[in-house]
């Protein structure tokens, strides 16, 4: 029987299998830089997903040029005055990260969705980069 939790496990294994794969060919600084990036193929295009919890959409800036996409922003955390802090694991600060993808993209066609602290960029492949079927006469 199909179980949704098995589906999650399969997805987790698929994500693990691609951890720091060489698909980006070293064009993007790897793990450690914030925000963490996952890149997926979806149809002809790509989807880049970033986890940026606690960051207001107005504090996120996305720029695209050629095949490079730059994400900048900051996270501020404020505590009410006069509190005693028991545990502080969340971090504040700014970030600036550029994702360079190894294909020609349609930078004007990029669509961004931000929901529940997750930023998804839907990146269409450039028409000129799509494979052509060549007929044999």
């Amino acid at each position, binding site marked *: 029987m199909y179980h949704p939790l098995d589906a999650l496990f399969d997805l987790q294994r698929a994500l693990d299998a691609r951890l720091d794969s060489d*698909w980006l060919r070293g064009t993007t600084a790897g793990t450690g830089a914030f925000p963490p990036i996952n890149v997926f193929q979806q149809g002809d295009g790509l989807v880049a997903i970033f986890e940026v919890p606690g960051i207001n959409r107005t504090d996120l800036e996305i720029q695209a040029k050629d095949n490079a996409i730059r994400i900048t922003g*900051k996270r501020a955390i404020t505590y009410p005055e006069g509190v005693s802090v028991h545990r502080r694991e969340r971090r504040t600060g700014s970030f600036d990260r550029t994702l360079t993808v190894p294909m020609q993209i349609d930078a004007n066609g990029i669509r961004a969705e931000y929901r529940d602290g997750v930023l998804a960029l839907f990146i269409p492949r450039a028409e000129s980069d799509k494979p052509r079927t060549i007929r044999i006469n």
Partner: protein
Amino acid sequence: MSPQELQVQQKREVEKQQESTVPARTFMPTTDIYETESALTVVLEMPGVDKSNVDISVEAGILTIEGRLDFSKYQDMQPVYTEYNIGHYRRSFSLSSKIDQSKIGAEMADGVLTITLAKAEEAKPRRIRVG
């Protein structure tokens, strides 16, 4: 304060007390906890979790938070490069002061859950005068 650069915090997996029947991994939300005279506030990062998929319970002095991730949107995507894994979230804390169960507030914004636990009357600190 000088601007500081954000670093990725590796996700920590929940250490299971019992082995679960399903193999999927569950992660611990990054958490801040602070206290005022009247309340305890717990702030948890659960990116990707919708507020309708959050469960909060206080039982026998243990606060448990669960967040279920909707991963259906990943269905037609093939990963080509990844830096993090995804999954459901769970974390528990034992509460040091008595909580008024009827006054637990929760709100969610940008993947961050803020829980406000009002302290029960008898748990509020009393000022003691030196006579």
